[in-house]
């Protein structure tokens, strides 16, 4: 009976993937690239050896952490596109500690840095949450503006207070983080670092928070229907703000992890667009912590391909950003099509009506 609905869903997704690939191909052709070679590089390079796979994984870590936070806020009815700025704030706080507290034992310094990053990001997430809850300021606009503010503040910090005094080239950057404050690599010859454990822990924590606790329940109710939640005695503003703080804290921790596991020092542009990509990942993972894991792996592949595209092809790595935008557009459209009862009905009539009629004839 529900056969045709499943077929319909698969068909819609297949068409969507096809459209994404075709538009991507059109862009690649337009810039004079080889479509199949480009796609092949994107798909195959990560699996060439363990080193390249870990390159994907180290991109997956911040993506995953950011996306988990975005899932929490989105489910609570507030779209956080300010993860970029929250990451910067997290990095600033983590850098301040990581470059100054190197004398403490590792077991203390590492959590301290991560928690500091989380607090800084959380506080920065508090601002748009509060503005939305109390003053009805659209979070889409406030978070974008706060991204620019945070970027400038970060640039100032690495140019003046956190500047590495030994750096003579004039490029603003902080000192290297102390040895005791780095996330160690797990294997020799691979860049995969301990941050992956934090990511795994956060997946579990966020899953339990959202689906097993009363807080998560209230956040989801507030996000699904503000009116009904208010009617049910839920303090909608409070949970909106909390969700933004959690979201910002995740982004801040992602920034700290990126600092301590990958970059080793704060440099300009080090968030690398993870904040925006996190939005795509969260959507692609249907805002569900468990689905976000494969989604972030997939986008880890895409981000890693930027490196390979630059080395191996004439296709500019900016392509990946365009593809991400395209994927968002397609996901939001597909979600509407999949749930549209009219299109389902038309699909059934077009492809299944004949069969059903035959069936009834037989029965008769």
């Amino acid at each position, binding site marked *: 009976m529900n056969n045709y609905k499943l077929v319909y869903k698969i068909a819609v997704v297949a068409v969507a993937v096809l459209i994404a690939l075709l538009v991507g191909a059109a862009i690649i052709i337009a810039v004079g690239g080889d479509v199949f070679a480009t796609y092949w590089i994107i798909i195959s390079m990560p699996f060439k050896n363990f080193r390249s796979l870990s390159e994907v994984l180290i991109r997956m870590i911040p993506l995953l952490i950011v996306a988990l936070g975005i899932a929490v806020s989105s489910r609570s009815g507030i779209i956080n596109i300010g993860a970029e700025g929250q990451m910067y704030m997290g990095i600033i706080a983590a850098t301040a500690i990581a470059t100054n507290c190197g004398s403490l034992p590792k077991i203390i310094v590492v959590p301290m840095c991560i928690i500091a990053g989380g607090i800084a990001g959380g506080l920065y997430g508090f601002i748009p949450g509060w*503005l939305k809850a109390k*003053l009805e300021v659209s979070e*889409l*606009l406030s978070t974008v503006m706060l991204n620019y503010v945070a970027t400038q503040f970060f640039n100032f910090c690495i140019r*003046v207070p956190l500047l590495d005094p030994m750096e003579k080239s004039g490029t603003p950057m902080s000192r290297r983080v102390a040895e005791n404050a780095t996330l160690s690599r797990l294997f020799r010859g691979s860049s995969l670092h301990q941050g992956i454990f934090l990511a795994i822990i956060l997946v579990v924590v966020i899953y339990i928070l959202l689906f097993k606790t009363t807080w998560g329940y209230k956040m989801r109710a507030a996000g699904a229907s503000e009116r009904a939640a208010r009617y049910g005695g839920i303090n909608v503003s409070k949970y909106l703000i909390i969700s933004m703080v959690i979201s910002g804290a995740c982004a801040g921790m992602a920034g700290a992890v990126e600092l301590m596991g990958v970059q080793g020092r704060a440099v300009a542009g080090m968030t690398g667009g993870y904040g925006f990509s996190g939005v795509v990942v969260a959507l692609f993972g249907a805002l569900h912590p468990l689905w976000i894991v494969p989604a972030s792996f997939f986008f880890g592949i895409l981000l890693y391909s930027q490196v390979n595209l630059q080395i191996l092809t004439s296709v500019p790595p900016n392509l990946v*950003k365009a593809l991400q935008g*395209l994927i968002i557009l397609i996901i939001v459209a597909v979600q509407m099509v999949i749930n549209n009862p009219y299109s389902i009905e038309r699909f059934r009539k077009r492809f299944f009506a004949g069969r059903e009629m035959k069936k009834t004839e037989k029965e008769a």
Partner: protein
Amino acid sequence: MDFVVSTLTLTVRFAVTLMIASMGEMFNQKAGIFNLGCEGIMSVGAFLGMLIPFTMVGAGTAPGYINILGLAVATVVGLLMGLLFGVIVITFRAPQGIAGIGMQMFGVGLAGTFFRSFIGGTQSITGISSMEIPLLSKIPVLGKILFTHNPLVYFAYLLVPVAWYVIFKTPWGLKVRAVGTHPRAADSLGINVNRIRYQSLAVGGAMAGFAGAFLTLCQAKMFNAEIIGGRGFIAVALVYFGQWHPIKIFLGALLFTFAQTLQTQIQIFVPQFQAYEFLTMLPYILVIVVLAFNRKSNRLGPSALGKPFNREMRV
């Protein structure tokens, strides 16, 4: 004195970008569509504005008609991108906020990709130069501020009363307002809600494309992938700030451009000021502050803003 005059002169000239973009966004929002993709469309427009003179003439001075061609192409492509956004949010009825973010990433990514491929790295162009209007530009102080711009600037300022007239006096404007506030009423009178919304997205997209090209041709005279730098988002915020009224939006655009120009001017005139990042932040902070103090306007707006129209869905 130099500082004041040059700041004001540049404000008058550079306000055009924000003014045109937010005027376009006003048409979108009046019809009930919240287009955050403005930033992406502007980005593509800015790229095309650069690309056409650059590929046709190189880095030298391009004749006027080629610059105009760049503007025209940017406008047309902007229009098409507006329609593409329409397919997503009108035909498929996707949530507009998140679709707008997708559009923004798509546009900025696309412009960056083509820029890297066709131009390579940062190049500057001569663009459209300013010119002094005889006699008028000789008026002390005011002459410099008001009458030393290129014709496009005056054309853009002319668009403000035109937009006002279109929205409040023409049949199309009447329909746009109805569709954005009470689409069911418009529908019951035989007005094709989605067609009007598509049309307004086309207008808004075209204006965003134009604004982007103006930025590269008349203001920055160069392109890079981050050139729009949030102007598209500010344009969206300006529409709220201006409470969906063309004249107020125009004043808002002047105010914000003034803030932006002021900070660059301080950097030039007061080089000893070290923490210039804080100046750069100012316009963005200003947007947030203004939005926070302007929340009443949310109730004056087109009440169907952001809501897809579906005839068979009862409220």
